[in-house]
């Protein structure tokens, strides 16, 4: 009897499912040589992010001037921002990596920001997406370090200035911290996006369930928190980019 009562209540009350908008729904089932290349809302929002990046730069540079207008200044600031990160952290030798880092930053940034559009999907709230990027980056830096320094690259895991008796302790720590890189990189972005959007979803749930005089409180909170989320979206893209540069620099200079 009690179970029927519970189900009756849950049927009448509005359904609270703040994780619902992280649901990936496949749209077209496609496969290519046994590989699942289906499209889904996640994939479509990746494409939308690409389109938004291109639209942004199209608007910024459709009519380039020596003395820039507002949009052009914004586009140039984006370019110089990433350029500054790469040259500050990796140095002039980081020049070949610049296009990749530039693409990475703007892809993540626009995925983060596009996810704030009501009814949209946040690509970067998918751990598998952030893990794909972080594992590719860390795997690449490992391969690049090996390619650049050969077997010397293993010295990277041997901290300098440490007494020999401590080596059996230090080397595993270094290896573990290296292996933690892709995990921390992926989880940081995923967790920030997931937590922020879940919080917004919970607050919007309250806006719907509370009467109009009480709904203003969570509604006001969502307004403020959306602003915070824009900031977080930017910061997380920035951190992801900076750490990528740090890892490339490590592989290049073996610090």
């Amino acid at each position, binding site marked *: 009897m009690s179970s029927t009562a519970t189900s009756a209540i849950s049927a009448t009350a509005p359904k609270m499912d703040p*994780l*619902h908008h*992280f*649901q*990936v729904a*496949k749209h077209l089932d*496609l496969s290519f040589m046994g*590989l*699942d*290349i*289906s*499209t*889904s809302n*996640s*994939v479509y929002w*990746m*494409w939308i*992010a*690409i389109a938004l*990046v*291109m639209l942004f*730069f199209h608007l910024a*540079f459709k009519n*380039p*001037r*020596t003395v*820039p207008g507002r949009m*052009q200044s914004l*586009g*140039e600031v984006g*370019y110089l921002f990433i350029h500054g990160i790469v040259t500050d952290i990796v140095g002039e030798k980081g020049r070949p990596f610049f*296009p*990749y880092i*530039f*693409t*990475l930053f*703007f*892809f993540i940034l626009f995925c983060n920001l596009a996810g704030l559009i009501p009814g949209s999907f946040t*690509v970067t*709230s*998918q*751990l*598998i*997406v952030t*893990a*794909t*990027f972080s*594992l*590719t980056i860390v795997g690449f830096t490992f391969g690049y370090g090996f390619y650049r320094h050969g077997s010397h690259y293993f010295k990277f895991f041997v901290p300098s200035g440490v007494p020999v008796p401590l080596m059996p302790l230090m080397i595993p720590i270094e290896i573990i911290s290296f292996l933690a890189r892709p995990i921390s990189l992926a989880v940081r972005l*995923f967790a920030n996006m*997931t937590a922020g959007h879940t919080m917004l979803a919970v607050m919007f749930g309250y806006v719907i369930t509370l009467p109009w005089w009480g709904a203003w409180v969570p509604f006001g909170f969502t307004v403020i928190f959306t602003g915070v989320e824009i900031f977080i979206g930017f910061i997380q893209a920035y951190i992801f980019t900076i750490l990528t540069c740090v890892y490339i620099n490590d592989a290049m200079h073996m610090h």
Partner: protein
Amino acid sequence: MIATAYAATGEQAAAGSGMPQFEPSVFQHQIFWSIASFVILLYLLRKHVLPAIEKVLDTRSNKISSDLDAALKSRQEAEKASVDTQKVLVAARRQAEQTVEEARLEAARYREMAKESLGQELSKKKSLALAEIETAKRAALAELHETVVDIAILATEKLIAKNMTKADTNKMVQEAITAVQEHKGQVH
């Protein structure tokens, strides 16, 4: 391999948490499309966006450096022109001073000359005047002398006509003639 590794942990997590992110069936296509999307965006940005931005920035830096060069050049030219102008001014001033000096000297010379010629003129006029005065004096003296002689003769005639005999008269005439002749010899 990555996907299966995550899928293994994902299945356990998804069972417990109910988070849609850990549903392994949606992993593979997202891995593929993440990489594909990145590559597509990389291609588009490299092909269309980065060259455009770099062109703008390069154009600007070229323009700035060429403008700076041009500004430097014009400044040097201006400085040179200023120096030239200064030179011209100094030369002009010097020339003006020289002209004034020359004019002053010329004027002094003219004044000197004028003074000299005036002096000559004056002394000439003076000597002329003196000569004229002398002539006039002489003429006046001569006239006076004649008049005195005439008066003396008239007076003498009258006196003689009254008192004298013929012999006396002859004697006196003789004396008078002698006297006049003597006098004349004295005057001349």
